[in-house]
């Protein structure tokens, strides 16, 4: 009985989180009705006229919509792949560094950008890649004509992915390094005695040792496929690269907040939520299948 009494108090500690969830996640769902209305802010959701699926019909008519969905998935998948492979490779290389001082300094330096916001980094990147910026000056030394990097729709997705990987790989490296320390040193010793080279050690001991971590990270990031990073893209893009750089979130922001097309923005946002829900369910299932990871 006593332990049961205790448990109640523990449940009470859930309360603030629960209230937060209701206020910011459940109550706003009510706003979804806007997508089915000819919404007029003066009349509100109660007074506006219902138009059924009219908005969705218009949404699929626009070239933008498909384009935006494609960009979102394209950029997000590239980011997921980049953010998985680069830190993994880097962690493996760093793991081979025997001099601890050097290892720690490298670690610190590469994970610094993680702490800067995109507002700052965006400004820095725009300057570095500007027409007269350092990168173009470097290119000029090799006789290459200057390139307007952030004005080129064909380059934009790669710049976005590249800069995101650059910003985050140091931080993700730490997760892998932590996983690497979890491998039993006896395995390495045993393999060495059997005559394994360093490459063999890597292949047969290290990689299997961190496999579960890698798979878990990969699977969990599936849930983020539809979040290609509003902050970053918002701070880097301009009308020239809308065609290849606009993602659902930036598009919804412009349509809804800047251009007052509430119905359209809500409809696209709703579609994103539905797709996102399915992806999260899928990734949760996969995480359970592959690594036995589950919450409930």
């Amino acid at each position, binding site marked *: 009985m006593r332990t049961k009494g205790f448990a109640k108090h523990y449940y009470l500690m859930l309360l603030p989180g629960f209230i937060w969830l209701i206020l910011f996640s459940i*109550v706003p769902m009510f706003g979804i009705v806007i997508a089915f209305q000819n919404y007029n802010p003066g009349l509100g*959701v109660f007074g506006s006229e219902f138009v059924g699926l009219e908005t969705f019909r218009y949404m699929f008519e626009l070239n933008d919509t498909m384009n935006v969905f494609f960009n979102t998935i394209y950029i997000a998948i590239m980011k997921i792949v980049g953010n998985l492979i680069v830190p993994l490779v880097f962690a493996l290389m760093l793991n081979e560094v025997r001099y601890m001082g050097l290892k720690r300094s490298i670690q610190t330096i590469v994970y610094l950008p993680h702490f800067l916001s995109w507002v700052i980094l965006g400004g820095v990147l725009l300057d570095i890649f500007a027409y007269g910026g350092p990168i173009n000056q470097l290119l000029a030394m090799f006789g290459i004509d200057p390139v307007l990097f952030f004005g080129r729709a064909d380059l934009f997705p790669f710049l976005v992915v590249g800069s995101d990987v650059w910003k985050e790989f140091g931080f993700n490296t730490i997760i892998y390094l932590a996983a690497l320390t979890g491998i039993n040193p006896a395995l390495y010793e045993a393999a060495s005695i059997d005559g394994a080279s360093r490459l063999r050690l890597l292949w047969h001991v290290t990689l299997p040792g961190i496999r579960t971590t890698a798979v878990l990270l990969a699977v969990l990031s599936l849930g983020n496929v539809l979040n290609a990073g509003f902050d970053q893209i918002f701070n880097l893009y301009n009308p020239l690269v809308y065609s290849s750089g606009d993602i659902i979130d930036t598009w919804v922001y412009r349509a809804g907040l800047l251009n007052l097309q509430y119905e359209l923005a809500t409809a696209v946002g709703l579609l994103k939520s539905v797709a996102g829900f399915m992806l999260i369910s899928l990734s949760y299932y996969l995480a359970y299948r592959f690594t036995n990871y589950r919450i409930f």
Partner: protein
Amino acid sequence: MLKKIFFLLLFILLFTACSNEDASKDETEDKDPSSDTPSEPADPFGVYEETITIAIGQEVDPSDTSLQDGDTPLDNQYTRHVKENLNIEVEHAFTASPSNYDQKVSLAIASNDLPDAMVVGPVELRQLVEADQIADLTDVYENYASPAIKEIIDSSGGVALENVTFDGKIMAIPNSQASADGVHNLWIRQDWLDELGLEPPKTLDDLKKVAKAFVEEDPDGNGQDDTIGLAGPDTSNKLYANFLESTNNLYGFDGIFSALHAYPGYWLEGEDGELVYGSTLPETKEALSFLRDMYSEGLIDPEIGVREDSGESVISGNTGMFFGPFWMPYGPLTDAVTNNPDANWQSYALPLDANGEYTPHLSTTTTQFVVVRKDYEHPEAAMKILNNLLANESEFDPSIGGPGFYPLRLVYAPADEMEVTTVALREVLAGTKEPEDFYDMPAYKLLKSDVDHIHEIKLEPYDNMDIEYWDPQANLGQWTRAYSALVGTAPLVDTEINGVKSVIYSQTKTMEDRWVNLKKIEDETFLKIIMGTESLDAFDQFVEDWNNQGGEQITEEVADVVAK
């Protein structure tokens, strides 16, 4: 038990959320401002017996450092004047920097949480009217607008009032701008021209030649390849002014388009009398092709569309030419001259079309509106503030708190204000008239101080407008004004202008839903064509898309509006 608590909580939260909505709705419904008309006689300048407050949305420019010590946007020479003269206390419902103001207004509209009064553009006005969020100001305008304001508003030939009249009701107070704001001259570094022995470019081919010389022949003589021939629009400006925003487009290519008789963004009457949208016409394609060539030859700023502020390159002295309205001295030119006293920026009504005529687009004179929240108790207070401003603005010293800090400021200028000022200043300088001759023209509110100060800043010879014959440092504020008139406006006075107007300057019904997307394809396609990332034939695809995605329907609506 626990379950019950959670459900109870959930219920309470949902209930309060809903009932709040209801409460705010009731509030809007049971107060009808037109029913409690004041019993006292209407007086445009009447003082309130008890202090009333008005909470406004205001644009506050963080880079505007003109306020004197201790003053704030809410407590400065002008707000104190409003308090003393009208007994109105101004408060802020919100403030926003110029680049965020429209967004804040949109948010206020979306959340139905309007300030008592604020300044909005034509698109927001229409939205507010349809959402039934703002007060009917018909009686307020009739009873409280000062004679001076009525005179200026009527000077637009009824257009200003037409723009704010919905179903016979006046829903907002319109402004009236000098028509000079709508013509975008060619501004050019005269000292660079002189250095290279060139003439101002009369035709489009001349323009190309001059731009080429500016880019390649190192006109600033610093030995570096860092000069821009023709500046282009930055991220906050447009390739060309359009029928909804027809004035004050900085660094756009308006001059080039109009020299080729292309008027993109404008609604025009075609040869057969049918209404057409200028952006879809072959002339526009031709102009785009011209700009595309210029860009590929490096004659236009390579960073158009990506640059945050094209003014910076004007100030730093890297730019040789740009298109802009007469008031550019109020923009980057003051800093450019402070930075480099030799930067001899002159303005021309150029380039000319194939027949040697100057054919710029012209603007509407009404672009901004003061609206009042529907259930605000003193809708006439906004009108009184505007009356007070027009009557007294010339008394305030902009250097200790500029116009940016005057609440609910709308520009009120007779359409020909700048032209009249230019002529007056010339006559005073030539000695054919005395400053006193211009004292009795109250609608031209700054004219008196203009003529009084001109001798401080203009050096002899009085008919030479080169920068070396000015003394900007003697009185920078007055220099800005006088330079705008004598250099910026002079081409409009001296040139015969065969301007083109849009047949409408307001939105139609279908535009509300579709215009944003149509405009988006237009802007993107045109920018990409100019910058060479799309072929010129993308224009034809654009026209087709534009028609299919609502353009045809909108054109019909425009025709209906015009026919009425």
